[in-house]
């Protein structure tokens, strides 16, 4: 599929052209449907149930009663169109159903038909169209499956909506309903199953992990001459590090992990990884399942209690940090077994930033000589979480850490960073090969902004703090003519710059 993808052109981000509508451009894009083996372990029906329509509508009713967001968002959209040019998938594809409001309307039309007086009355007479009401037919379900898997739940639309309507909430609800009638998303459900069974998205069992970490310790020894540890399951450690499993071996993720280890080493703080909680990411958020999300998060609570740690620190991962920062206290709290003097939980960047400010670690920029950095704000960190004590700390802290590590830092166009940042194109459960076409096209706005600073400022590398961003960019950078190694972990930069050993 990727081979056929027409790579969108990259223009000037300051004068972004809004594509002309190309109806149906992406109607064929869809992920694999989950098999019974992926659905059943999560308690979902194996395949599409015969009475799916009835069950789906009933589930919609339940969700409307459980989620204020969905309940209110269904009613209050005025179709002003403020969101229509904000989604990276629309900007990259021109498909009108990738405009946030149009995507929501795939869901809202069914809501109108079965849950509003006007839709019920007119719908029964076959005039539902007058009030935007549609029957929940197989065609509509297929449309849901295709287009709710072209949303990365990045929340960019919600920044611009005058009522704060967040398409992510709608796409989560749609995916929840589809799961509950047996029309699941293979990639997400298979991964969630692995987490329940083995503990991480990659299905990496404990012994393999330990083996892998020993190898990394050797690498660190070769590089620094020091015994920098990667402790596993150490009871009584101060900190439990929960990091995306991609950090254990994927590049550039693993270079970030080695950076965390160096920081802990330099700070003299005891820490450990747990073989029980080897995954920071929580894909249950993508499918909108509170229940599954809580089950996955519970592994972290159990691991922390078993090991008797005083703090939980999360590694670089976008959606994981949303779940950790915004939801963890709700899902597995109260976390009163942790030291109240530190944020519960804490981000690795908060940890490192704090050390830099206190002079607890020394950094030498020459370790990153010749590099000109820019920073990609990961969508869920930017718009669904925070770092530090003040609003917007999630933008300041990573930049301050990067600037302390590199000779030159340049920001991309202001419309593409901070709260207006673009998703990498692979978030929300879309990081799967069969969706490569939409992933490549959806990364166009980010690639355009990157291209601009590469040309104007000589940027050589882009740092990110999310496992999905790193994996996605590694894949799509070459399709836009960039080097795949342009994407780096923030703690990879810290790793290159940190001064170990003779600290006096």
């Amino acid at each position, binding site marked *: 599929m990727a081979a056929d993808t027409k790579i969108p052109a990259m223009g000037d981000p300051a004068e972004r052209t809004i594509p*002309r*509508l190309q109806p149906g451009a992406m109607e064929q894009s869809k992920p694999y449907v989950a098999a019974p083996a992926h659905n059943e372990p999560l308690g979902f029906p194996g395949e599409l149930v015969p009475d799916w329509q009835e069950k789906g509508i009933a589930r919609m009713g339940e969700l*409307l*009663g*459980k*989620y*204020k*967001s969905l*309940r*209110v968002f269904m*009613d*209050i*959209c*005025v*179709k*002003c*169109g*403020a*969101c*229509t*040019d904000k989604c990276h998938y629309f900007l990259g594809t021109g498909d*009108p159903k990738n*405009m946030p*409001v149009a995507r929501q309307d795939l869901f809202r039309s069914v809501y109108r038909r079965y849950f*509003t007086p*006007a839709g019920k009355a007119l719908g029964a007479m076959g005039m539902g*169209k*007058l*009030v*935007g009401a549609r029957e929940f037919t197989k065609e509509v379900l297929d449309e849901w499956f295709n287009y709710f898997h072209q949303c990365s739940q990045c*929340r960019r639309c*919600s920044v*611009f*909506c*005058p*009522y*704060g*309507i*967040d398409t992510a*909430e709608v796409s989560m609800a749609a995916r929840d309903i589809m799961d509950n009638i047996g029309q699941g998303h293979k990639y997400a459900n298979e991964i969630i199953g692995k987490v329940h069974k083995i503990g991480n998205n990659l299905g990496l069992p404990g012994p393999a992990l330990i083996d892998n970490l020993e190898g990394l310790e050797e690498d660190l020894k070769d590089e620094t001459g020091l015994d920098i540890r990667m402790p596993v399951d150490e009871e009584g450690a101060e900190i439990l590090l929960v990091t995306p499993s991609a950090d254990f071996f994927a590049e550039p993720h693993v270079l970030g992990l080695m950076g965390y280890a160096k920081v802990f080493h330099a700070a003299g703080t005891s820490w450990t990884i747990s073989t029980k909680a080897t995954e920071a990411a929580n894909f249950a958020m993508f499918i909108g399942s*509170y*229940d599954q999300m809580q089950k996955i998060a519970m592994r972290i609570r159990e691991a922390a209690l078993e090991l008797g740690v005083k703090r939980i620190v999360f590694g670089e991962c976008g959606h994981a940090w949303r779940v950790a*920062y*915004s*939801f*963890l*206290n*709700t899902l597995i709290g109260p976390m009163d077994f942790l030291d109240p003097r530190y*944020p519960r*939980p804490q981000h690795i960047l908060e940890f490192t930033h704090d050390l830099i400010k206190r002079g607890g670690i020394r950094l030498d920029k020459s370790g990153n000589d010749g590099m000109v950095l820019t920073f990609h704000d990961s969508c869920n960190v930017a*718009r*669904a*979480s*925070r770092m530090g004590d003040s*609003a*917007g700390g*999630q*933008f300041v802290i990573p930049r301050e850490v990067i600037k302390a590590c590199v000779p030159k830092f340049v920001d991309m166009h202001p419309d593409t960073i901070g*709260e*207006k940042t673009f998703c990498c194109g692979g978030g929300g459960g879309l990081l799967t090969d069969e969706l490569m076409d939409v992933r490549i096209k959806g990364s166009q706005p980010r690639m355009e902004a990157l291209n601009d600073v590469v040309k104007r400022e000589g940027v050589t590398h882009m740092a990110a703090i999310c496992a999905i961003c790193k994996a996605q960019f590694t894949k799509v950078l070459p399709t836009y003519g960039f080097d795949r190694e342009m994407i780096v972990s923030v703690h990879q930069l810290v790793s290159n710059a940190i001064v170990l050993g003779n600290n006096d």
Partner: protein
Amino acid sequence: MTTFFAILFYAAFAVLVVGVGLKVAQYARTPAPLKIPTTPAPLTPAGAAFRVGREVTLFESLWKANKPLWLFAMVFHLGLALVLVRHLRYFLEPVWAPPVWSLIVWLQPFGIYGGLAMLAGLAALLVRRVVVQRIAYISGPSDYLMLALLLAIGVSGMMMKMVAHTDIVAVKSFFLGLMVFDIRALPADPLLAVHLFLVALLMLVFPFSKLLHAPGVFFSPTRNQADDPRERRHLAPWAAQLERERN
């Protein structure tokens, strides 16, 4: 005609109040199980309330999104607000709360500008809906009908001011009468009839249409929640129930 409009307005008023009341109660009762403010967000509930206030009065997010649209929306809504204030004179006795009354009197001439602004804003919004390809795509019949309805209300109202005056003293008497369940004669003026009929229609469709954005915006969790999940544990009743069942 008087009886017809008397019944119509009682019915429309009842539907508006009960319909919106039920919707507001539903919004208020539905729990928000997770903390989902769009960040950066205020760190305190007071800050979050201030954020909602800015959305309602300044259309802060819309300003970020689209400047022409912000302008059209602002012109329309401010115009509408002035028009509504001007119309208070039909529902209040001059003796009622003198400072308020003098403010209403003072605002009367601005109400006219408000009417013109409202029409200009609506016309711009309509043109935009037709001309911009993306907006035309997302517009359904009800979106056009709503604009047409508001335009017709505005035009019929302005015509009574600019072209063919109606007996506004009698109109006021009619509405003050309605408020004390005393049916008083309404002038038999076709323009007035059209105006009042359309206003009643607007009141009737309010609780069933996108006009619910007016009360709904206050309940939007991405705007009204404070960013304090690490400091305060947020737990919805159904989530607490789920937790009890697990343990």
